[in-house]
């Protein structure tokens, strides 16, 4: 964790800049420390040199005095004049040394005093030399005086020597102290130098590393960009669109390669400009396009235009052009956009619209056909039935037995036709009718249905039980029709030897059932069951029976129009629900209606 954090810090250029700043500050600090150390080293070296030289010069002075002494003694002994010539009291010899010493001790007041004293001593010694020489040179040598003088000179030289040695020692001590300091400072400056080097190396290394990392990233980004660019160009080609860019400040146009290909030209076959591209826009659309474009340049509002291009070969293409305004990297306003070849879609849309129109007119035809069926056919049928009922109630006496049978057959057929017509009307209403979804109390509805079918129910001596049913959002009259059909079926297809038992109840969806690739679960659907103990049918027909006009039973015993269950399915479809059936011959049937819980 810490490593990652550090790494992140490392990568973060801000932190890095700060770190670099600190590092440089530290280096400067150490460098300045080093410099001061060097300076002090320098001065201590100077001091040592100074002291040593002072010592030397002082020694030189002493040695000159010694030489003078020796030469004088030698003269006194040998009386050789040559020892006095260039080796005795030479003018300026000691002076130059003393000057040197003066220079050397200029900064040290104590030493200056000492040198002054020394100079005095030298003066006196010279005076003694001169006196001694005088004595030695006299015709009347006074050896006692000479000896005394020599003795005095010796003593004085001794004194001078002591003095000088004292000074020399003092300088020597100074040298020692400075030497020690010098050692310290040398060590310190070595450490500083070392630190300096290490830090500098570190900074160098880190910077180098970071630079490498950054370069690597840049390269990666660059490569990605290159790749993107290539794929983009490819994509343009494949998808059939081209892009363009207008730099508003410079008034320059840029078109992508595919832009040209879209209008049937070689890439970059003309200089991109409004004038040049206008040559290819369909003359009828040109004014509109130009106007919209120019307006947008003023208002900087995005444009979305569809217009035609006329290709060099005369082909017409429908292009959708979308553009919007933004600023480029330099802050200049640009309009960028995409042109998309819509020709196929356009053609398809037109086709669709035409198909739609056709469908509409077919629908209208069907509707009027429907109207004929539901109204105009019912009228004559109604008459037939009425007249039959008149004849049967009034005129039967005058008709033969055979005639009566014929009439009853006519009546049956007419009733059948009536049922079929009613069913057809019901079916068309489930397709067309006003679809008003409202909260429908299923219990109330079912009870109403039972009321309406009460005579039929009594005839068959049927027993109907209704459980607790939910309130659903539904088209009331359609759901009513649904139950009418289901219950009527159960009554119709009942077994001869037993009284029909019909139960209508709501059930929880236990195992999630699957229908049409969708899971039907308790949360989403109500399950309402209409169960009977009728004649049933083979389960393999479970889907077929919902098909329009499909009937399983033929024969007059069970009359049906083949519409009832198709209507049920239609109604359930209208509610986004499902209907399924489980059945077994001679046992009964169980119709399951699934209605969605939310509308």
């Amino acid at each position: 964790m810490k490593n990652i954090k550090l790494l992140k810090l490392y990568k973060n250029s801000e932190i890095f800049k700060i770190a670099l700043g600190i590092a440089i500050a530290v280096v400067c600090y150490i460098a300045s420390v080093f410099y001061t150390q060097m300076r002090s080293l320098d001065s201590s070296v100077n001091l040592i040199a100074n002291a040593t030289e002072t010592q030397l010069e002082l020694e030189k002075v002493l040695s000159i005095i010694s030489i003078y002494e020796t030469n004088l003694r030698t003269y006194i002994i040998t009386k050789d004049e040559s020892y006095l010539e260039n080796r005795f009291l030479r003018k300026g010899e000691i002076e130059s040394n003393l000057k040197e010493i003066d220079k050397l001790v200029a900064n040290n007041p104590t030493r200056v005093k000492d040198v002054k004293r020394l100079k005095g001593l030298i003066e006196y010694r010279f005076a003694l030399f001169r006196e001694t020489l005088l004595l030695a040179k006299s015709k009347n040598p006074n050896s006692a005086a000479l000896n005394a003088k020599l003795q005095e000179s010796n003593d004085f030289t001794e004194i001078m020597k002591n003095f000088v040695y004292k000074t020399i020692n003092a300088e020597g001590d100074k040298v020692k102290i400075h030497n020690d300091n010098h050692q310290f400072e040398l060590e310190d400056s070595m450490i500083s130098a070392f630190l300096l080097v290490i830090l500098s190396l570190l900074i160098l290394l880190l910077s180098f590393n970071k630079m490498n990392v950054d370069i690597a990233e840049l390269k990666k980004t660059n490569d990605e960009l290159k790749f993107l660019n290539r794929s983009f160009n490819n994509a343009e080609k494949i998808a059939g669109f081209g892009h363009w860019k207008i730099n508003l400040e410079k008034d320059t146009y840029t078109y992508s390669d595919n832009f040209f290909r879209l209008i049937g030209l070689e890439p970059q076959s003309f200089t991109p400009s409004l004038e040049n591209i206008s040559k290819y826009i369909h003359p009828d659309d040109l004014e509109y396009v130009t106007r919209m474009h120019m307006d947008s340049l003023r208002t900087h509002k995005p444009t979305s235009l569809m217009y035609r291009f006329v290709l060099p070969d005369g082909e017409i293409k429908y292009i959708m052009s979308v553009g919007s305004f933004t600023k480029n990297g330099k802050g200049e306003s640009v309009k960028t956009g995409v042109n998309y070849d819509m020709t196929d879609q356009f053609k398809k849309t037109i086709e669709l619209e035409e198909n739609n129109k056709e469908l509409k007119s077919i629908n209208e035809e069907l509707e009027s056909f429907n109207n004929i069926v539901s109204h105009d056919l019912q009228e004559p049928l109604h008459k037939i039935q009425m007249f039959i009922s008149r004849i049967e109630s009034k005129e039967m006496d005058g008709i033969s037995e055979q005639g009566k049978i014929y009439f009853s057959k006519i009546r049956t057929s007419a009733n059948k036709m009536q049922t079929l017509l009613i069913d057809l009307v019901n079916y068309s209403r489930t397709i067309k009718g006003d679809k008003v979804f409202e909260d429908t109390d299923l219990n109330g509805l079912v009870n109403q249905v039972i009321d309406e079918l009460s005579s039929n129910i009594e005839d068959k001596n049927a027993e109907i039980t209704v459980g607790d049913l939910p309130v659903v959002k539904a088209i009331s009259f359609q759901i009513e029709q649904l139950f009418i059909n289901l219950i009527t079926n159960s009554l119709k297809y009942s077994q001869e030897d037993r009284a029909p038992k019909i139960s209508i109840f709501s059930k929880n969806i236990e195992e999630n059932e699957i229908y049409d690739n969708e899971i039907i679960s308790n949360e989403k659907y109500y399950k309402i069951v209409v169960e009977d103990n009728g004649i049933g049918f083979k389960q393999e027909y479970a889907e077929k029976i919902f098909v329009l006009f499909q009937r399983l039973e033929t024969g007059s015993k069970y009359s049906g129009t083949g519409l009832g269950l198709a209507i049920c399915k239609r109604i359930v479809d209208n509610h986004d629900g499902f209907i399924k059936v489980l059945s077994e011959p001679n046992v009964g049937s169980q119709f399951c209606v699934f209605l969605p819980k939310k509308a």
Partner: protein
Amino acid sequence: MISHEDSMRILIADDDEDDRTFFSDAMMELKMNNNLTLFNDGKELMDYLANPDIMLPHLLFLDLNMPRKSGFECLKEIRADLRFKDVSIAIYSTSSSEKDIEETFIEGANIYIKKPNDFNKLKKVIKEVLNVNWQFHSSGLNKETFFFSI
């Protein structure tokens, strides 16, 4: 003002001759002592009603599908005229479309009858309609909410 007749005055407008016959036969067989007038179509009916001197009918049966003036149009016109505010109007049609039924009630019909296909049923229906209508009149029930669909 309902005037001096000893029975209910009933008007029926139906363009179909047979239907008119059925209706009058049924009324006759019911022996309910009513005064029945038949009209061949809507226009005839409205012309008759336009006359201010007529005696107001108690009950009016209108077939929906009539040429020249449909039952629906007659309904609207009659209800627009306050003279007939106490007249019960029954729409009489082969259509059993819920939408049609509701439309007629909304426009002011009181009764809607689906033409039955059996003569005996027709008699029953008429009898019940007349009964219900009388009950409303005699019990002082609210005209505005008098609806009966059969």
